[in-house]
């Protein structure tokens, strides 16, 4: 593995550098739960305090109203003894801290306090308790209520100020102070309970956040391990799919991706191997073809070869025998790629050696078959058209090892040259058979040797170029200079296939006796 890749993988193995999903989720959930609980608690506590306050005000109003009403005549007569009795009665409510009655000048007529320490003396001017006015429903306009402090104990109290009215005239004031200690105690208790309950909820939220994070994080960790394995080259790695949710889909997608990668890699390897084989085969093939066209007095030669994408294993060769004689051969091997090219290389060497032994043409093929057949790969065979030109006698002696017939164009007609014979490599020497045929070549005659890549060239509709089109092209080309004639025939094939990729090599050799 390259260094940078292992570096990246190393970082992933270390785990996340920032906050983990678990922490983020836990913090977010806990924060949200705490915030909402705090808001709820504040609301509950506020409502609770309001209810308690209203209750206290109602109590104070009742006690104060009674004190003012019952003491009216005593206050009018400034009868302190009787007035004290009323303030005592007011103190019978244990929330009342003190009760005071004054005359219309604010002079204290009666005063009583639950602590026993009087907030004012008889005959003195009463200083009403100052504080924040309280507005609540049910408080009459002539009554004042303030939140204040008990000057004796310093505890917070609700101070009420009632007019004392006798026969429609205000004759004095009644003051009472109501302890708020009860309210404070209840509120403290309630707050404690609410906070404790909220703490339990926050804890539960934290625990469920961590568990929820685990549910999400566990499959993510499995995916991470899988991705690490794949990154390390193990394309057989897969991730267990345990759910049908989005993470399950992700795991399934991951597995599909891994399999896709594996297939793609296998395809790539196969393709590269095939490509390498093809380039080797092409190299061998190119090495076998003649480097130049030989000169023959009174004759012209031209050759065309186009390999298919998968090298089909065509070959043409020119073998000079002596001053006047020259062999022209065109061959096609049944195997493709490297084995086909090697089979063809072997055939070419043996054929060249046998050709120079100067036996009969048919015998050359028999001897070639006898040498190559035991060695050629099982199932592989070579078809070959073998033509020996004698430029002095103007004859073409032909033998055919299972190959397409040669065509002779003369005076606008095509004559097939088709000696019988079996393909090379099919059968042992004893069963092999190859005929030979001698054709006289006249001035202007054009002979075409080719492979089936020409006649079986296909267009995109899967129609074959065929012998008839080929013959017609040869006739049309027969009067042209040889290079042009070759181009004319090749163009005719190309125009027919119209760009469809060739499925076999195309080989064409033209020989003409000068006019």
């Amino acid at each position, binding site marked *: 593995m390259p260094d940078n890749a292992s570096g990246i993988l190393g970082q992933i193995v270390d785990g996340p550098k920032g906050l983990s999903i678990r922490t983020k989720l836990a913090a977010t959930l806990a924060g949200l739960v705490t915030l909402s609980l705090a808001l709820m608690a504040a609301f509950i506590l506020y409502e609770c305090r309001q209810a308690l306050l209203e209750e206290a005000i109602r109590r104070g109003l009742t006690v104060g109203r009674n004190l003012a009403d019952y003491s009216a005549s005593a206050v009018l007569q400034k009868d302190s003894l009787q007035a004290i009795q009323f303030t005592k009665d007011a103190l019978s409510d244990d929330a009342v801290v003190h009760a005071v009655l004054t005359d219309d000048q604010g002079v204290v007529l009666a005063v009583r306090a639950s602590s026993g320490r009087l907030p004012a003396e008889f005959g003195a001017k009463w200083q009403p308790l100052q504080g924040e006015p309280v507005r609540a429903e049910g408080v009459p306009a002539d009554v004042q209520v303030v939140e204040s402090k008990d000057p004796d104990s310093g505890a917070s109290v609700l101070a009420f100020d009632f007019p004392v009215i006798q026969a429609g005239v205000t004759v004095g004031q009644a003051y009472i102070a109501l302890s708020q200690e009860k309210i404070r105690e209840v509120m403290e208790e309630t707050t404690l309970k609410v906070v404790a309950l909220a703490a339990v909820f926050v804890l539960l939220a934290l625990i469920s956040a961590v568990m929820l994070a685990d549910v999400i994080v566990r499959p993510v960790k499995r995916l991470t391990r899988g991705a690490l394995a794949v990154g390390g080259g193990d394309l057989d790695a897969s991730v267990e799919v345990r759910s049908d949710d989005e993470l399950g889909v992700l795991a399934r997608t991951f597995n599909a991706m891994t399999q896709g990668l594996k297939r793609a890699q296998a395809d790539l390897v196969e393709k590269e191997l095939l490509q390498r084989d093809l380039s080797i085969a092409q190299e061998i093939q190119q090495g076998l073809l003649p480097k130049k066209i030989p000169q023959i007095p009174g004759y012209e030669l031209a050759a065309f070869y186009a390999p298919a994408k*998968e090298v089909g294993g065509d070959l043409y060769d020119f073998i000079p025998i002596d001053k006047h004689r020259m062999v022209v051969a065109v061959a*096609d*091997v*049944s*195997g*493709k790629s490297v084995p086909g090219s090697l089979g063809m290389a072997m055939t070419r060497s043996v054929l060249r050696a046998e050709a120079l032994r100067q036996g009969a043409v048919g015998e050359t093929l028999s001897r070639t078959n006898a040498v190559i057949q035991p060695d050629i790969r*099982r*199932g*592989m*065979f070579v*078809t070959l058209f073998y033509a020996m030109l004698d430029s002095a006698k103007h004859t073409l002696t032909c033998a055919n090892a*299972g*190959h*397409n017939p040669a065509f002779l164009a003369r005076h606008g007609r095509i004559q097939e040259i088709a000696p*019988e*014979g*079996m*393909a090379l490599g*099919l*059968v042992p020497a004893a*069963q092999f*058979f190859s005929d030979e045929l001698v054709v006289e070549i006249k001035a202007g005659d054009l002979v075409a040797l080719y492979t089936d890549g020409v006649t079986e060239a296909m267009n995109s509709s899967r129609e074959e170029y065929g012998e008839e089109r080929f013959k017609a092209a040869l006739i049309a080309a027969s009067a042209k200079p040889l290079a042009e004639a070759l181009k004319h025939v090749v163009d005719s094939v190309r125009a027919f296939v119209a760009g469809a990729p060739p*499925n*076999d090599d195309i080989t064409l050799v033209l020989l003409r006796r000068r006019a």
Partner: protein
Amino acid sequence: MDLLNIEVVDSAQNAEIVVFRLKGHLDAQTVRELEGSFTLQLQAARVRWIVDLGGLDYISSAGLGSFIGVLAELQAKGGNIFFIGMTPKIEKIFKMLGFMRIFKIFASEAEAVRAFKGA
């Protein structure tokens, strides 16, 4: 992608004889499948084969080579390949290559089965 369909059945007339019915495209790629089928039959020691070429729309030289490749072994074990379902095009190729001197060709499966009995 051109495909080759290979149907391997026991001959209705003689269960010792294997019939290969080929359909489609027999070329350098698809011939590997056919060679696989051949190997299976050889491993089962079944060596009397009838090959029906009637369904082929294309046969390449590599495809033809597969029959040559297996023939010697079949004959050594007392078997053979007989062809049926020849189309004019395939017959022309057989004649050109010299396959007619190597393989026997019959008009029908029944005739080929009879020829195995006589052998």
